[in-house]
């Protein structure tokens, strides 16, 4: 009886002893270790489905790889669409979770979020393909137009009908920049070729995209066309009409695909966010990622493309890298205005702020449905 009681008391003391020792040990080890040891939290918001096998998926894969490279905590939300409410809720929730930066990967998000900048003043927003002028908003952009220019070189050299199709989504600076770069690429090798553009009004409308493709082929006689949408949805149509197609974001593996205009989002997000983590990011400015270091490029060139064409692509690439970027030297628009003279180059700021024109030779078609 007595012995048992003693034993219990001893056990209690031993437990207390161990507990206090552990507490002491833990306190000593963790004391003052609070700063810098926690992972940074970064939010990433996608417009569409992250498994769309297109723009959204390539972005999602890119940010996830960047997360692995930089070791931050990623909060990823897709399928926001154009809903301001959902976007706001998502941003709010990410802010509540402690995100220090939120990447708005869709070009339309910046304009939706700009009015809330004050509410989220301690969060750095990275806005893709935007031209935000708000203190905590940072723009980043791939020089995808450089890759489109190179694809234009292929199209220009390989067209037989001299009629090239372009399925656009929305006629904004980014959209137009792509069209103009493609057109300039085409024209750099084929002065006679015409570029027919149909806007679908959305980055995610495969029906319209396919209709546009059919029209470009059947009505306008395009034998090669390209698209600037989220997903490569028209391969079937291209195959069916036996025309060639230049895709984007990621190669489709389709027979009719001549090349794919891609961006290496892993590289882009890694470099961009590394700068953010170092505290080197300057807000209101735009971070560009182009052909240098292969941030963008033709991720795929079909065997159908002859070496001659490939060589031309390569020399054009080198020319660009040497400083003769797409929007340099003589550029005239479809209205006859000279936008750039020989020996001049459009500074990056114009590529964003001043792109409401089309290169001469580009014909934007009215959407039949509209």
């Amino acid at each position: 009886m007595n012995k048992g009681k003693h034993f219990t008391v001893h056990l209690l003391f031993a437990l207390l002893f161990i507990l206090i020792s552990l507490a002491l040990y833990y306190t000593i080890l963790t004391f003052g270790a609070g700063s810098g040891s926690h992972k940074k939290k970064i939010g990433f918001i996608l417009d569409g489905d992250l498994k769309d096998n297109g723009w959204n998926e390539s972005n999602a894969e890119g940010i996830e790889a960047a997360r692995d490279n930089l070791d931050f905590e990623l909060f990823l939300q897709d399928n926001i669409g154009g809903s301001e409410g959902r976007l706001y809720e998502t941003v709010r929730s990410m802010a509540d979770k402690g995100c220090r930066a939120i990447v708005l990967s869709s070009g339309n998000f910046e304009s939706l979020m700009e009015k809330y900048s004050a509410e989220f003043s301690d969060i750095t927003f990275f806005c893709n393909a935007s031209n935000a002028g708000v203190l905590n908003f940072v723009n980043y952009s791939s020089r995808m137009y450089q890759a489109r220019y190179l694809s234009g070189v292929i199209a220009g050299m390989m067209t037989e009908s001299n009629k090239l199709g372009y399925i656009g989504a929305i006629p904004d600076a980014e959209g137009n920049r792509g069209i103009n770069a493609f057109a300039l690429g085409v024209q750099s090798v084929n002065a006679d070729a015409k570029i027919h553009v149909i806007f679908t009004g959305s980055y995610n409308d495969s029906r319209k995209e396919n209709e546009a493709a059919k029209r470009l082929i059947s009505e306008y006689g395009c034998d090669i066309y390209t698209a600037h949408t989220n997903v490569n949805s028209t391969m079937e149509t291209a195959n069916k009409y036996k025309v060639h197609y230049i895709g984007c974001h990621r190669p489709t593996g389709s027979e009719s695909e001549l090349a794919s205009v891609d961006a290496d989002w892993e590289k882009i997000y890694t470099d961009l966010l590394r700068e953010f983590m170092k505290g080197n990011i300057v807000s209101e400015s735009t971070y560009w990622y182009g052909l240098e270091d292969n941030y963008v490029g033709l991720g795929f060139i079909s065997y159908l493309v002859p070496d001659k064409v490939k060589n031309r692509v390569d020399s054009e690439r080198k020319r660009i890298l040497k400083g003769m970027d797409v929007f340099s030297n003589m550029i005239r628009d479809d209205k006859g205005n000279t936008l750039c003279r020989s020996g001049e180059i459009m500074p990056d700021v114009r590529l964003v702020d001043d792109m409401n024109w089309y290169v001469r030779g580009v014909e934007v078609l009215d959407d039949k449905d509209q």
Partner: protein
Amino acid sequence: MTRISERIRIVIVWILFIVVFVVSGILLNKRLTGIMQGYIESQVCEQADRMASVVSEKLYRETDQLHYIARIIENHGGHVVDAVSSNSIHRKMGVQTLAGSALSGEALDVMIFPGIQEAFRGVSSISYVKNEGLLFTSPVYNKKNVRYVIYELFDDYALKENLSLLSDDSRKIVITTRAGDIIMPFSDVTNNEAAYFESRNYRDIFNDLSQRMELNSSAAGFYSVAGDRQIFFTADIPYTPFRLRGYMEPDIMTAGILDASNIVIFAFAFLLILYAIGSLYLIIATEKAEESDELRLAKQQAEEANRAKSDFLASMSHEIRTPINAVLGMDEMIIRESDNEHILEYATNINNAGKSLLNLVNDILDFSKIEAGKMEILKDEYKTSFMITDLVNMIAVRAHNKGLEFIVNADPALPAVLFGDEDRVKQCILNLLTNAVKYTEKGSVTFDLNFSKNSDKDIILEVSVKDTGIGIRPEDQVKLFSPFERVDMQKNRNIEGTGLGLSIVQNLLHIMDSKLELNSEYGKGSTFSFRLRQEVADWKSMGNFAEAYKKSVLTQNKYTELFRAPDAAILVVDDTEMNLTVFKGLLKKTRINIDTATSGNDALKMVRTRHYDMMFIDHRMPVMDGIDTLKAMNELKDNKSLGVPSVAFTANAGAGSKEKYRSYGFDDYISKPVSPSELEELIIRYLPPEKIELVDADEAAAEDDREELRNEDQDFINAYQAAEGLSYNVAIASCGDVSVLKDSAITFYKTIDERAEEIRSFMEKGEVEDYTIKVHALKSSARIVGAVDLSIKAEYLERCGNEGNIDEIKKRTDDLLNDYLALKGVMSFIFADYLDADEMDNESAMKDLFREALRRETLMQFIFDVREAADDFDFDRILASIRLIKEYKLTDELKEELGRLNDAADRFDDVRVKEILDRLEVIL
């Protein structure tokens, strides 16, 4: 053993704590140093960041200049371009077209100088090209588009000349590209030192720092290079792809901070020491507390053990006393009945030895009682002279036998009657006197008894016992009072005693608020004395006790009735007439007037009519028991015997009986069957002494007409012994002498019908309580007349009655009553028979009968024992019993049977043994 392991345990726990403290101290120190380093590093980082900002600003100042020139070119046209040039080979300046040609100065290769291209994108930039230098570029616009780029290129020399920065001596800083190429050392960095930065060691360190920078704009750390501990740091230069790298002596940063760490370590060590001291103190305190706990526990255990010992001693002593009493009783019988000188001498020796033994046992009993705290002081009035007389009686002979002079100096002025515990006072003095006699070889023992008046109510009794004995050494005087200690063992080893005497005296005196004092000179003698407060009941002087003493010393050696008291009157109350008869018979020779009552109510009537000097009341009586009777008497107004000594009869005497009965108001008790000597002693003690005539021994002997008695009663004895169902020996032992037995037997005989009817009627009515009282009475009266079997049966039924076992009562009562009534016939035969047996040769017949009875009883016991042993298969016991029985004088027939029995036992044949036993029973 446990003590040591306990210590080890404590030490282990203590060491464990110290170890934990030291380990956590080391951890704390490490951690603290880490934190301090972290703090220093962050401080260095901040400084590095600031320096990087300064560098950045300085660089952008150059860019601003270019920007300014660019604006001039834009506004004033190409003709200004010519002005943009440099005359230094170290610091080139120029304007370049998109195509790569130089409008002014030297054309730079776009692929080598990416800064040119950046400017064409509209952004002013600073870049470094290894082996070429630091390039500043700025765009020159033509409206919205960039037309030229203006640049300025500093080679290493120019950088040193124009852009060099100065840091304090303590730091060595260089500006590098991200890849680690040195762009420009700070001005106080020597070429040698700058070379260090390019060394493998330093590159490794900075690569490590760069990795740590991943998340921040700067990093710093402590690194050892060639045994030197340095702080290395690096920081991004804002808006440039450059970095600042540097190192410094740690002292500059750590001086004050590590002091703080030292203070913390010192404080911790100080606390550790404090803890060690504190915990040590606590442990010692705890240990002491535990020790005292243990001591308390040990003490408790010791006390328990001691109490157990005392209880054991008490019960043992009690148990031992019983057989001693039996021995003494039997011896007393021998003394009474034998005239043979030798036998008397032996018996007297037995008596003396037995009494010594009894004294020893009583000592132990007293001592154990004191130890167990059960000793109580029971105060009562007592006569001083009697106490002294008793003491003198007890000591004088011993002193005389030893050839010692025994001097008694009792102050005649002592109050005649005192109030206190006479027994205890007497015991104290007696012990001292006994000791004095014991330890004195020659000379004298002096007993002084004086007093001084203390108040109107009490006196201080001054008792002193002085001897001329061996004395006690001063060093032994301390030991003297501890129990079981006997001083001077060598000298005193032949002196008997338990060594408890003085301890008991000491304790008894302590209980009575006194203490024993000793004044002793070794070799010359000792004086023990004490002063005891006693209340006074009667201030009258006691006078000279010597007369009484003289009388009392006469009663020595041989038993005879001690006294006569023809003037005294005694009332005896008992519901059993038999007992009354026995009682009267026992006291016949004392000539005391004895009145009897058979119930409490009768007794109450009697005390109103007459004054009795003493009363004996049976405890267990129907209707009103002894205690109630006494109580009622004390409450009776016209009680003529109020307050006279009363003694209770009890059949259930045990430890504490005296105290028990005293608490009921009795003065004493006596157990049944009544022992004649006890009875006489009681009467002497309690009867008023003036009514007692002490009888001279010779006179008593003369009156002791033994022969006459024998002749007169022999017929009766013979008849009695022959009677079936009656044991003369048992009867005579109970009654003391034949005449008492005769009276008892007649009373028993006369009341058989009445009592049997009572028992039957109580049984039939189911009045168990009354029934039980009746069978209880039958139990003792049957024993008195020697009806042993009947007594046993009655006892059994009494037990049934006490247990309320009515079934058993109903079943057995008839059997009991049959036996009881059968005695009527037997006894009538005795009374008829002994009257006609005058002619018999009494003496020889008695002897034969005595032997016969002895053999018969012993044989019965023998048969019983052997049967039991046979049941147990204990043949050794059977053989031992046979050996014992063979010492008696046996008939040939018996000898023959015993021989067979012996053979059967030898063969372990229990069946045969039992057969022989059955035959023996038939022979009996």
